[in-house]
């Protein structure tokens, strides 16, 4: 087999690996600063503080039928929170035309939170939920999702 043909076959095989890249997990409790509009949106919500990993949970299917309507759930348990209260949760995305998805605000005495909604994801990307607690600490959970495109895009 000539080296150029070998390159072709290896190149074709590598494509699925690129497209099904696994989830990026932060190690420890400190997250790494994200870049671009995504990173800036995170820091806007946290007033410049890098959020810590934990307490909040972001649930979303990792392989998505259609990026137009993707169910997501964010939750934070009473045990994980106590004695602080939950003030707000932000949802931020990496690759849509704008990074903000939603910000949820809770009642003054909220000891736990659970929210479910449906969002749009333009392409495969990272999604992050960030919680602001009453002690002004920030906690995050980041998920990487794969969005396949529809076969026939209608006009």
């Amino acid at each position, binding site marked *: 087999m000539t080296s150029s043909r070998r390159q072709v076959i290896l190149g074709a095989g590598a494509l699925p690996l690129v497209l099904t890249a696994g989830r990026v997990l932060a190690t420890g409790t400190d997250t790494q600063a994200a870049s671009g509009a995504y990173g800036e949106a995170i820091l806007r919500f946290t007033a410049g503080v890098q959020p810590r990993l934990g307490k909040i949970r972001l649930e979303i299917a990792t392989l998505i039928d259609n990026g*137009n*309507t*993707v169910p997501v759930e964010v939750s934070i348990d009473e045990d994980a929170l106590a004695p602080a209260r939950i003030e707000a949760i932000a949802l931020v*995305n990496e690759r*849509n*035309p*704008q990074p*903000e*998805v*939603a*910000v*949820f*605000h*809770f*009642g003054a*005495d*909220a*000891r*736990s*939170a*659970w*929210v*479910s*909604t*449906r*969002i*749009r*994801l333009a392409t495969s990307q990272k999604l992050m939920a960030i919680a602001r607690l009453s002690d002004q600490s920030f906690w995050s959970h980041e998920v990487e999702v794969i969005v396949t495109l529809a076969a026939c895009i209608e*006009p």
Partner: protein
Amino acid sequence: MTATPARRVRTLIELPSSTRAGELIEIRATIGHPMETGYRRDASGELMPRNIIRMFQCELAGRRIFTAELFPAISANPMIAFRHRVQTGGELLFRWTGDKAFEHVERRLLNLR
């Protein structure tokens, strides 16, 4: 959605028929709305202006228990569900506001046993 003037706003609200103090209840509210992102182009290539619901608020007996700020990344016909630890019953007020002076209010009763 085909646009007609003064389009009737459709909503679907789910909440328990009755509850008691201390219970964690789930409230689900869906509203019919295109949530036009402002990033799509029409057939002639023109950018379609943004038309979204920007805020969803829920009050119970006059106190705000939940607010959601929404952005174009929220799907059309937005459904928002949240859980609330019941302390009092009373009138639940749901308010959606957004672009093009959009405002819609629904009222329900949260019955305490």
